[in-house]
């Protein structure tokens, strides 16, 4: 795997969850751009990255803001305050309709 941080995050998940469901998801790659690794490692701590392209055609900056804050406020995602904006900017730039 090309990205050590993402590989580490996936390995940590594998240890925690011990589930065969994980297999296959490492093939999902987000498009290159500033904030890609930060976004991938943050999101992958709870779910596979295919959620991002799946919803991309209907997303905008406003809906990504809403989505990222829902992950933090409702689902307890641990995101440092200074990381929120780069993640939203990356998702908006590469995964909007």
């Amino acid at each position, binding site marked *: 795997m090309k990205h050590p941080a993402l590989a580490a995050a996936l390995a940590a*998940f594998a240890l*925690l*969850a011990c*589930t*065969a*469901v*994980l*297999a*296959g*998801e*490492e*093939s*999902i*790659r*987000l*498009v290159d751009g500033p904030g890609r690794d930060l976004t991938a490692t943050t999101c992958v*701590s*709870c*779910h*596979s*990255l*295919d*959620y*991002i*392209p*799946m*919803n*991309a*055609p*209907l*997303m905008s900056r406003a*809906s990504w803001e809403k*989505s990222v804050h829902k992950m933090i406020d*409702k*689902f*307890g*995602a*641990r995101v440092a305050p200074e990381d929120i904006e780069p993640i939203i900017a990356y998702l908006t730039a*590469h*995964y*909007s309709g």
Partner: protein
Amino acid sequence: MLTRRKWLAAATGTLLANALPRARAEEAAGASAPEDILIALPGKKPLIKRTFRPPNFETPLADLRQPFTANDAFFVRYHLAVIPEVDVRTWRLRVGGPSIARPLELSLEELKRDFTRVSLPAINQCSGNRRGFFSPRVPGVQWGNGAMGHASWGGVRLRDVLRKCSLQGNALEVVLNGADGALLPQTPDFQKSLPVERALDENTLIAFEMNGRPLPHFNGAPARLIVPGWTATYWVKHLTDIRVQPQPFDGFWMKGAYRIPTGAFPGARFASQETPETTPITQILVNSLITTPTPGARLAHGRPAQLTGWAWDGGTGISVVDISVDGGRNWHAAALEKDLGRFAWRGFRFALDTSQAGPLAVAVRATSRGGEQQPEKLTVNPAGYHDNKILSLSLEVA
């Protein structure tokens, strides 16, 4: 372009996604609409992968043509990523809460031995089935037609179990929890509640069998709740805890998800969870699915052709399925197949006229015995539930 091709992974316990060529993987992850990818989870045949983790896998149309959907083809839907393999020897079902006088712990053996066994055929349909067809589009798992299936469910009645535990008169809601959980402790656990009346309905089951076989792991082994006529969000998998309480359950998955605008749809009310704005989704709406021909199919000019499919509702049964071949101006009753029960789907068939070459605009409209009929238009709602609009299918006679 590789978009029309699909790749398969074998069901040998691990997936073969590492064999996926890089170019293909990047295309699948790109912003363009991804094609359906078929992947086999352990114990399942290849299904349409919507998301890997939590696993959300949809049944292809080809596997929805049999009266009973095969266990290994049945759709998979999870909210949280940790799904333990439950050991049936140590598994216990705990029943308790403030409205239970005598709490109980049951092993699978006791559950099977101490209560009357029941089985019934019922549709299991995700609330968000067909969300991917919504216009305007709505965020969430972009399901097509296959977040549903039909099976015969075998188990015991929830009410028999509750009564054995001396259910108290103040009971309002029955809260259900399963063994699956989240990676982060802050993520709300997936728990659901039912109104006590629905929990005490004779058709609400704790099932351990599906089509005469033990429940597959990814469909809730060793036991799950069966709430015939209600959407699958209530059919809690890997059931471990049943709690009965005199006040509304305030968990996220009741208060913050699976809600529809109050009064927007027909169906049972869930009064103790209702607000002036929103209310929990409850019953499945009358609906239908065309299984043959497939969209865009070419029918041979002058050759007999049959339209087939299924129709179902939230528990009254289907009274009529109408077919239009002129874009909805005139309707003709289809022949109905055997009635398998009021919670089952009902097969229908209709001979298509292929005597004239050209486009054929077919539409299907089911009506329930309760008098509900599929509407012409979708009732738009923020979470993308209840798509039961009249189906249309464009065919070509040539």
